[in-house]
């Protein structure tokens, strides 16, 4: 539930979304991913107006959500290959991307194991792998550290830093604030559907890449806007008072 978020994200930036359960972190990430519809306001992500066209933006970003988006009866590599083919990669390119991702997320030994037979942490790694094979400009990670062992968390942090150094933008939520603050360049606190510290400090002087305001906005300082939301509302109960938002699961 988003009831008044103002947020700018600069290209290549790593932004942490923190806040209590039900504050709206997942809703904000799903809004930016194009999965959650705006009920009012404006949103632009990667140059696409989400109020008009949510489909186009989805293929250019990766979302690591609470679900893995994977198929129980497919193996790790088959899930990764399908994820790559589903964003238009050729069969050959999908095989290569899947092989690289399997190594990168540390699932080489489980490559031919079905999703249903993986542990929770291994499923999380696979989910991260499906995000990697998309080769996305914007990574949206919803509590990516949850369920990972210490080695998996290190792998995740390295992947996030690599992505940012490649010029990709990362927005992630986490409750493990010590680790997350060490990873993020900036923290935005989401409370009751509103963002605190969401505006990029130099956003006024720069062209936003991604921005949201009102009920959720992200903007960055690249030459061309990547994404943005203004005076946006999203969620089931759009009339809910901001102070009530924390009581509703996103």
């Amino acid at each position, binding site marked *: 539930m988003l009831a008044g978020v103002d947020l700018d994200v600069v290209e290549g930036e790593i932004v942490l979304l923190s806040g209590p359960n039900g504050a709206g972190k997942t809703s904000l990430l799903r809004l930016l991913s194009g999965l959650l519809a705006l009920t009012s306001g404006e949103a632009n992500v990667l140059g696409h107006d989400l109020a008009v066209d949510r489909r186009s933006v*989805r*293929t250019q970003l990766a979302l690591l959500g609470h679900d893995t988006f994977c198929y129980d009866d497919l193996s790790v590599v088959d899930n990764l290959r399908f994820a790559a083919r589903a964003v238009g990669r050729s069969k050959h390119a999908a095989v290569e991307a899947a092989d690289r991702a399997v190594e990168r997320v540390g699932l080489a030994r489980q490559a031919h194991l079905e999703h249903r037979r993986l542990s929770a942490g291994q499923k999380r790694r696979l989910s991260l792998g499906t995000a990697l094979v998309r080769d996305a400009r914007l990574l949206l990670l919803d509590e990516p550290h949850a369920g990972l062992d210490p080695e998996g968390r290190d792998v995740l942090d390295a992947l996030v830093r690599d992505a940012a150094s490649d010029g990709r933008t990362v927005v992630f939520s986490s409750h493990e604030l010590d680790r997350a603050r060490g990873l993020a360049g900036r923290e935005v606190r989401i409370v009751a559907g509103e963002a605190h510290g969401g505006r990029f400090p130099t956003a006024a002087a720069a062209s936003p890449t991604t921005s949201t305001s009102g009920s959720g906005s992200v903007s960055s300082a690249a030459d061309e806007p990547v994404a943005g939301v203004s005076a946006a509302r999203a969620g089931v109960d759009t009339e809910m008072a901001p102070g009530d938002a924390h009581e509703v699961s996103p």
Partner: protein
Amino acid sequence: MRLLREAAVIAGKDLRIEARSRVTTNQVLPFGGLVIVLFAMALDADRPTLTRVAPGLFWVTILLAASLAAARSAAVEIENGAADGLRMSSLDGASIFLGKAAAVAVQLVGLELVLGVAVVALYDVEVRSSPVMIVGALCATVGLAAAGTLFAALASGLRARETVLPLLLLPVLAPVLLGGTRAWEAGFEGTPSDGWPWVQLLALFGLVYGSLGVLAYGSLLEES
């Protein structure tokens, strides 16, 4: 061309899932076989009646099996939020529909082959004109797969989707039951000219629901 390439990706994924899970071969096929055998036992004392109603019994069994196969096809997209993964893909809704319907159709053709042989063996019927039966079965399969995939997507957003899907789907499939039964009666009786009009009905049904699926599936996926 892109539409077919994307549909092949989806169909390949669904058939790979079936190859690994073996739900159709280990659950739907035995279910269909059991229904065929139970009908044979129930009507065994009245052999002429059993022979006369054999086409209808076969297609009732196929309709029930199609409902199960379509439900399974939709269910794999609900597990682990896979439908969100499809929404995040660049695949067109029409491609996804065609791919999923094609995978269901492949499974139904396999079921029809095995259960058709069982009907001939158990119900004392003789195939006198196979073309009208084969073409009729193929047209019926297209219609069953298209309508099944479409209605399974429609029901997938409902809490009681497992019970709602047959309630929605089976009445809609009545023309397939009628057309398939008449076409196979003609094939068993050696009067194919009586069967071809019913094959045309089956082809029309497949065309209508195939077109509806191509047009509507993307929207249903967004709303599910």
